């Protein structure tokens, strides 16, 4: 009962969040100077007027908003204003393939590597590895992906020829690896650092001392008593991590010339392709909101102290 109530509540909140984001970006986008037909070749005024009428751009902005929302409720994202004869839905569908693959691989890589490295570092807090991680993760956080991505490309693809320099090709690991590393690396650093600090904290807690006093071997103490509570901060970070990976992929898709959502987003914004930008915004927002919900859900399942819908005071 409490759980279903919690779930409904979260879904409703998610819908409101998405609606607010759509509204704000709709007006921001249209209020930016220029329009989809101001660029490129010069058109006769009559043609331009026809185009504007076709896309309802001649109407007051609020009416445009109402029309857009009405179409959206019918699951119609509209036609692209720049890519002739392509609907936004088909653009998004083609872009999602690459973006999702990069994103999912990157978050898995970041989690597995980050947690493993963080654990190793926490077990010997003054060891070489531990200090290395603190410093390397600083670099991972400080170096932006638009520097990291070309560097990786230069060394691993151009010099060593292990991977593709750019493009998506058939989407195999030959094309996938570098973009995934470029997106995941900063998150590996952050997660490792988070995991290290959290596990060190838990290892110093009283209940771990109790576990040692029971005569349990160190590996059991670590895995059965320290690991689970230590993972809670990492779980909380999942949602911001996904957001960071998505924003990171915007840059990385540009650098590696991959036609993903991020690239359409940037191109769309530059060309004032209103409908395409709105479509990508909806996709991004939905993903981030969805991941926030998943994070909360995992947290509730992982920690018995979080009791949903029950007062605890």
């Amino acid at each position: 009962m409490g759980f279903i109530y919690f779930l409904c509540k979260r879904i409703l909140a998610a819908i409101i969040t998405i609606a607010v984001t759509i509204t704000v970006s709709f007006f921001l986008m249209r209020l930016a100077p220029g329009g989809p037909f101001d660029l490129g070749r010069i058109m006769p005024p009559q043609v331009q007027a026809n185009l504007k009428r076709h896309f309802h751009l001649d109407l007051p902005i609020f009416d445009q908003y109402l029309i857009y929302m009405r179409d959206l409720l019918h699951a119609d994202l509209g036609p692209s204003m720049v890519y002739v004869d392509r609907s936004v839905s088909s653009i998004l569908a083609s872009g999602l393939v690459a973006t999702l693959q990069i994103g999912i691989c990157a978050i898995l890589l970041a989690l597995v590597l980050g947690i493993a490295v963080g654990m190793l570092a926490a077990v010997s807090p003054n060891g070489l590895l531990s200090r290395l991680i603190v410093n390397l993760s600083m670099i991972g956080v400080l170096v932006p992906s638009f520097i990291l991505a070309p560097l990786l490309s230069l060394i691993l693809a151009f010099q060593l020829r292990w991977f593709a320099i750019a493009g998506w090709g058939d989407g195999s690991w030959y094309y996938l690896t570098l973009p995934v590393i470029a997106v995941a690396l900063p998150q590996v650093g952050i997660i490792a650092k988070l995991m290290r600090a959290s596990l060190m904290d838990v290892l110093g807690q009283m209940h771990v001392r109790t576990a040692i006093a029971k005569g349990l071997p160190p590996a059991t103490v670590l895995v059965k008593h320290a690991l689970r509570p230590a993972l809670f901060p990492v779980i909380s970070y999942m949602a911001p991590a996904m957001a960071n990976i998505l924003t990171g992929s915007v840059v990385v898709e540009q650098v590696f010339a991959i036609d993903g959502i991020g690239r359409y987003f940037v191109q769309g914004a530059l060309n004032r392709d209103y409908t395409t930008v709105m479509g990508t915004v909806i996709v991004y927002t939905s993903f981030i909101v969805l991941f926030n919900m998943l994070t909360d859900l995992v947290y509730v399942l992982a920690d018995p102290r979080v009791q949903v819908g029950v007062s605890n005071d």
Partner: protein
Amino acid sequence: MKISKTDRQPLLMCSSLTLRLPSNGPDTAAKAILNEVSFTMERGETLAVVGESGSGKSTLGLCLLGLLPKGLVPFVDGEIIFDRTNLIGLDEPSWRRLRGARISIIFQEPMTSLNPVMPIGKQIVEAIRVHRLMSKAAAWDEALALLKRVRIPDPEAKMYAYPGQLSGGQRQRVMIAMALSNSPDLLIADEPTTALDVTIQAEIITLLKQLRNDTGMALLFVTHDLTLVRSIADRVLVMQNGAVVEQGPANEVMQTPKHDYTRYLLACRPSGSKQPIPSGSPELLGVKNLTVNYTRSSSLFSKRSKTTALEGVNLSVKAGQTLGIVGESGSGKSTLARAILQLVSYDGQIRFAGQPVCKVASPGFIAFRKQVQVVFQDPYGALSPRMTIGEFIAEPLRAHFPELSQNERRHRVAELLEEIGLGRADMHRYPHSFSGGQRQRIAIARALVMNPQMLILDEPTSALDVSVQLQVLKLLRRLQEQHNLTYLLITHDLAVVSAMADEVLVLKDGREVERGATRQIMDDPQQEYTRRLVSAAMAV
């Protein structure tokens, strides 16, 4: 038990156990946390290790289980012979065979000592199976039997419960069950009852005594509380600054202490009673039908839920009087203080000096704030760490008397510091350079700076060592006589109330249980709950 007649070897023999940290610089001397500690324990014997904070008594317990922080281990010297094995320098695998099997421990903090994300049953089963080859099902049955043995209500359901769903006393019972799971020869109990309410405390002590008698295990009982010693220990070891100052049979040490420090500790229990106030003193504080509800709010979508912390409480304090508010955790005693201080919203009437207390932020309210001040329990958390104590004490003056010059403020602070037994020069120091007792005095000085008529003392001595506790109580008594102060003394400690208060109000679950003159409540309690409280306080 496996005691043969010829086995003359004591169970545990500590000789010259020393833990000395090297000096880190020419200015600091080497610090001895344990200094030449020697004692023996026979099988089945109960030894109480008594001392104040910093005496090394808990460190001693950790040494016996090899639980010292790794960095300290190289500095341990001496011998711990447990059943013919020297524990000093023992390797980890050998330690693991001892821990939880032959030597077990119960810690002070029942709230944090159990794994919060593992069900109780699993934690006990794990303790059994790490030392004995046994199927999960058999271990489960044994864990259940252990829970029954420590008399946890509804043990079958508790096996599946998480620690967060148990009370403090129940968690301590789980710790005991876990510690007993492999029938150890030696159980170390490190302040097992300090964090518990008095009635629970008495129950746990009774349980420990009974289990000790049933199993024949030896019990090393670490405590700061000499009153507990009489009821549980065969022998006593008194420690001060890492060294043993006196040891001997419990009765002997308690009745004819040889060392000054032991005598001092024994004399530290609050004694005497409060001088009665002249009859006809006016009522200073009157509370009628006070009810406080905490509501859990309330995001956009969830309903508010209500918890009643106080219900229909009445009280009346005359000028110069001390009213003791007694209750266990959850009784609403701190909520009462907060309501009187107008820190929470409430229903009911509060009158101060004949006037209803004004609304927050009205001019009359500021006058009320000047008259009623508070001292909190935790002297470590209550002082702002980035302010010198001079600034800290003078802060209310700045707020309420902005016309005072800096010199006048300084003068007032110096006056107060001298009154509480510190020096004028101390006003430039920061809180971290003061001890717990000194900090509590500073908090009292801060409360007095406005010349209030009334102090609300919320567990003012609970976080302090026994000897320091007495000094603070003496100070409070002296200040009351000098300034004709009125105290509202909130405490769980009946000994403190008995020595300090004219009248007592006993609270339980937010309601009044009993109210009356201190002597009458202590000598002839009318209500069952009060009787239990008083007898628990006397028994331990």
